[in-house]
């Protein structure tokens, strides 16, 4: 009885307090003088730890920096695992997600998205000696990827019989491929090209299959209903696009001088709509 009463008052208290948590986030950020942005830090070149400075850098970080500047507040980065991204945002432990986040219809039920900041395909890297040249050949084979992203559902959709094994970081999945623990490694194209660039002399032993599993529009994640913050973030992104800064950032991280080596940019930061 005592316990039941305790629980009732606890629940009552929680209900009473929850509206406070829903105060305007933009105002909170300005008051704190700080915006906490969730990043992966394990997904070069979107966000990763620069071995020289030990700081988290990357495309996602530069975008966050620009938004913090627009807000006139200090940027604090918080490293998250792929699977923890959306829960951390929903529970308000971070203000914004800049974590190689795919914008899709299913996720729109949970969080809001900024304008699309990058469009990437999702592909599969295999070892050449596996003899695999098409995604369909992965049927019944072990395929490695990261836990909690869109990679796993996408490969399952493309090859329903594949034996998908997931890890906490994409780097672990990539090591698994190199050690021969799986035949394929699934990730966003930009990350795959980056991993491939790091292989050095071993590049001749690996190949990235040409077929796209999906096209992934990446965007920043915003807590549901925080319209003030969304407007400001979108405005900051639009300004970056207009000034040409967004294009510069793209080529800085994905251009011919990077490990990804894209020679053109096929999208613009101008829409927050995605196809079903």
């Amino acid at each position, binding site marked *: 009885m005592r316990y039941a009463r305790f629980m009732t008052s606890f629940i009552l208290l929680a209900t009473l307090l929850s509206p406070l948590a829903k105060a305007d986030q933009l105002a909170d950020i300005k008051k704190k003088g700080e915006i906490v942005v969730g990043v992966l830090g394990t997904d070069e070149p979107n966000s990763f730890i620069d071995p020289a400075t030990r700081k988290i850098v990357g495309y996602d970080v530069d975008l966050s920096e620009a938004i913090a500047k627009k807000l006139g507040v200090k940027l604090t980065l918080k490293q998250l695992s792929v*699977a923890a991204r*959306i*829960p951390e945002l929903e529970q308000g432990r971070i203000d914004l997600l800049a974590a190689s986040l795919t914008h899709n219809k*299913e*996720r729109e*039920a*949970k969080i809001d998205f900024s304008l699309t900041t990058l469009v990437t395909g999702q592909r599969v890297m295999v070892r050449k000696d596996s003899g695999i040249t098409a995604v369909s050949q992965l049927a019944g084979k072990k395929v*490695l990827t990261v*836990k*909690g*992203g869109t990679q*796993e*559902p996408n490969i399952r959709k493309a090859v329903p019989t594949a034996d998908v*094994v*997931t*890890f*906490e970081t994409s780097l*672990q999945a990539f*090591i*698994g491929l190199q*050690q*021969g*623990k799986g035949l394929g490694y699934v990730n966003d194209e930009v990350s795959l090209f980056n991993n491939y660039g790091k292989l050095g002399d071993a590049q001749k032993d690996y190949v990235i299959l040409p077929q796209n599993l999906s096209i992934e529009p990446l965007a920043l994640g915003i807590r549901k209903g925080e319209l003030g913050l969304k407007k400001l973030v979108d405005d900051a992104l639009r300004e970056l696009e207009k000034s040409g800064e967004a294009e510069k950032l793209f080529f800085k991280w994905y251009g011919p001088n990077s490990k990804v080596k894209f020679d053109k940019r096929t999208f613009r930061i101008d829409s927050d709509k995605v196809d079903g």
Partner: protein
Amino acid sequence: MAFDLNLLLVGTYHDWLIQGLRLSLGIAGITLVLALPLAMVVALFRLSPVAALRWLGVMFVESIRNVPLLAHMLFWYFGAPELLPDSLKRWLYAGNIEVLSATVALTLYTAAYMAEDIRSGIRGISSGQFEAGRSLGFSFLGTMRLIILPQALRVTIPPLVSQTLNLWKNTSIATIIGVGELMYQAAKVESSAFRSAEAFAFATICYLSVSLILTGLGLFYRHRFPVRSA
């Protein structure tokens, strides 16, 4: 989003979770069967009259017990198999290397803890019993097998049950090396269906009920075979 109980009772997500539960139980079962005899051997090593064996026992227990299980898992998955010759490695990797590595890590880890419980159980038996056995002409192993261990078993079962509980919960760490156990499947349901509450409620109920059954068995044993005072 309301709690969707149906999702846990039928359909693909139900199948995934049950598959995870089965694998968790399987890993815990096999580990228990392997870890118990190993723990017994290590405990006897630690009590052996031979100094070198005692040292081996100490080294085993301390080197394993003082490193987190997570590190053991990563080592047995990403590290140790890489030291094997190529052909053996390829053969291993073609099979379910995830489950194998997890079982090895869990067996060693659990055995180190169980060895300490068995050792303290044996030490709990009055040394007069051991001396009496030896003076009647029994060998070290004979004294252990016929006089000490049967009595020590009754003292040791409760802490061993609690180690088995730990083992059962520790199987969840295997998720880190891609083993499709219960936590892994729960995370899979979460990322496919965005049903975190349902998936983790299922996992929690499974861990809790198996743990309670184990505790119940331990209580039953203690009731049925109480420790005899010497």
